[in-house]
């Protein structure tokens, strides 16, 4: 009788130990699922960051010149068209990444801002200095916001 009580107590102890282990395993699986599978946004990309900085600086020098003298030569148009091509290349690069929809949308907007400049240049055959200055101010703001967005991403 005494042996039975002892064995029952041992059995209960083992049962509660198994329960703890079971709960712990469940918690572990939950943490693994939570942290291992969830990637809600693409990580920081040094290539994107550098491309954005390089392009911003290139455009800054060109547009600062245009905002003094305006733009009307063939070379000026080619310069702006080159910027448009570079933004389009960056856009294609961004489209290739997973969980990157926000950055793609941001660069699509940047692309549309520069396309407007090219279209206006072709249509008017020149751009006024005031227009170039104000347009650059808007494009620069877009650049700054996109660069800041990339900088805030998690570094791996």
């Amino acid at each position, binding site marked *: 009788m005494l042996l039975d009580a002892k064995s029952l107590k041992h059995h209960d102890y083992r049962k509660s130990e198994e329960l703890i282990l079971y709960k712990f395993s469940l918690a572990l699986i939950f943490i693994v699922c939570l942290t291992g599978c969830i990637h809600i*946004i693409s990580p920081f990309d040094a290539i994107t960051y550098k491309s954005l900085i390089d392009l911003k600086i290139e455009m800054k020098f060109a547009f600062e010149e245009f905002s003094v003298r305006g733009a009307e030569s063939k070379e000026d148009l080619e310069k702006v068209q080159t910027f448009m091509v570079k933004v389009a290349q960056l856009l294609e690069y961004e489209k290739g990444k997973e969980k990157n929809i926000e950055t793609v949308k941001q660069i699509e907007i940047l692309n549309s801002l520069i396309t407007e400049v090219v279209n206006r240049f072709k249509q008017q055959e020149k751009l006024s200095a005031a227009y170039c200055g*104000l347009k650059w101010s*808007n494009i620069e703001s877009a650049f700054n916001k996109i660069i800041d967005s990339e900088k805030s991403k*998690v570094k791996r």
Partner: protein
Amino acid sequence: MKNFKDELITFFGEEAKLTIKEFLDLVSECKKSEVAFVKEIGQKTEAITSSLLQKKISKDEYKELMDDLLELQKVETLRISIKTKSQVQKIVEELRDAVFNKLFRL
């Protein structure tokens, strides 16, 4: 600001006086905002409108430049979304690091 108001009335005519007042109040409110982006929009609106009044840009260019501000608002909204998601991702990864690389190695 008084000169700016007069210039606007001269450009748009006396009949637009009330609308101009509303517009100027809005620009002034934006410029006083503590939110950096709202302040930026106020300053840009004033600069773009001034250029129109001084006939440095055409009406068509004015519309395009003002439309850009709406596009900038979209870029700003996306920036906030990216920043929030990145913060969540960072916290989750720090938690994982704490559990697997620190707690379980004790």
